[in-house]
């Protein structure tokens, strides 16, 4: 019953060339650091990556960009990464920009068995071009398709061997959505706790969505914009 995997090396081998992977995180907050580093090491190619952002030049998903492992990126904001700009302008990288709420809902729908949905976000803008429009109760919506991943990489704070996950503060972000939408979900956690230690009332991602669980090490947890006030 335990989903605790032997190593990141073995787990990440489940991701194949050409796969679509959904990756949790917002900026560098709550990203699956160990899984991304291992994926960069293995050099798996021609990936379609679905994630809100694409890391920074030398960390997070930026590592996969540096290695030219990504063919297509589906994201809402990529302004933090110079390598991205270079590869996009060279035509090496295909990009599908999606409004953030639409991206979150597309992933949610993918995990929930919904084919797609109508949203007002983007109506009258360039991203509505070519999409089905529908008027519902006098308001215009566009159709957006669900996203499913061959795999998902997520990061949680605590997990138990069944794969129940708890996130910490705003590092939750896209992680629970990614976990549900991945056919093969690999979760890494900061703390591996015993079965029964997580109060069922406090589970954020129920174990059913997780295929493999790993205890991550040496989390850098980089801060993109350190803002503080004087005591």
């Amino acid at each position, binding site marked *: 019953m335990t989903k605790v995997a032997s190593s990141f090396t073995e787990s990440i081998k489940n991701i194949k060339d050409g796969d679509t992977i959904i990756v949790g995180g917002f900026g560098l907050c709550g990203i699956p650091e160990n899984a991304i580093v291992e994926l960069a090491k293995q050099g798996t190619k021609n990936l379609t990556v679905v994630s809100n952002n694409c890391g920074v030049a030398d960390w997070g998903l930026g590592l996969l960009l540096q290695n030219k492992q990504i063919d297509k990126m589906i994201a809402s904001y990529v302004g933090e990464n110079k390598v991205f700009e270079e590869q996009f302008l060279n035509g090496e990288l295909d990009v599908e920009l999606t409004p953030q709420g639409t991206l979150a809902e597309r992933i949610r729908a993918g995990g929930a068995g919904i084919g797609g949905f109508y949203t007002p*976000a983007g109506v009258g803008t360039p991203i509505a071009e070519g999409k089905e429009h529908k008027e519902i109760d006098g308001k215009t919506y566009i159709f957006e398709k669900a996203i499913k991943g061959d795999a998902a990489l997520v990061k949680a704070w605590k997990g138990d061997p069944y794969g129940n996950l708890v996130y910490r503060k705003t590092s939750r972000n896209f992680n629970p959505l990614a976990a549900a939408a991945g056919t093969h979900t690999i979760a890494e956690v900061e703390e591996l706790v015993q079965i029964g230690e997580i109060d069922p009332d406090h589970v954020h991602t129920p174990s059913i969505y997780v295929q493999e669980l790993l205890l991550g090490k040496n989390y850098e947890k980089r801060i993109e914009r350190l803002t503080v006030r004087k005591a």
Partner: protein
Amino acid sequence: MSDSREIIINRAVKEIEEGMVVNLGIGMPTMIADKIPAEKNIFLHSENGMLGIGNYPIEGEEDADLINAGKETVTAKPGAAFFDNAESFAMIRGGHVDLTILGGMEVSQTGDLANWMIPGKMVKGMGGAMDIVQGARKVVIIMTHTNKAGEAKIKKQCDLPLTGQGVVNRVITDMAVFDFTNEGMVLREALNGHSIELIKENTDADFTIDPSLSGGQ
């Protein structure tokens, strides 16, 4: 802070009323947070999954797991809640957020907004802006009245690609406050002693003047 920024921020903070749930955009709008009077009970919503942003952390107490949508380290105020991004945007699209204050590049006289891309320049992405302008109950745009070349940013039509069509309720600049109503665009306030004449000269749009304005302030 430049004078024009200060004028805009000081005026924009007055939009925030007791008990509101407010989403502030990245950049100049984020600076409004510091100006909200402490006695007002406000919930700031952050689209990365938080309701109830507190102050910036005291040096040394920053937490990499606790950031706002601008990726700045923040704190959670008592009564705050964390949630995932789908839930965060359900709040936004579902009309549960009272007010959003966002930056703008161009606003049209019919309330169209352009604030996410300039053709020919690198496209960074729209983030959550397209969802927020559709879902927030009130959309207020803050921006300088003219661009660096002195050209009007409030125009008959936007030239830049849109973020949303007919979505803006109010625009606040360093010169004026305009509302977008069923009867068209209305000048509500002249700011910082600017005359209505000067506002007209710097606005490339058709608008009416609120009757309470008699020749500027």
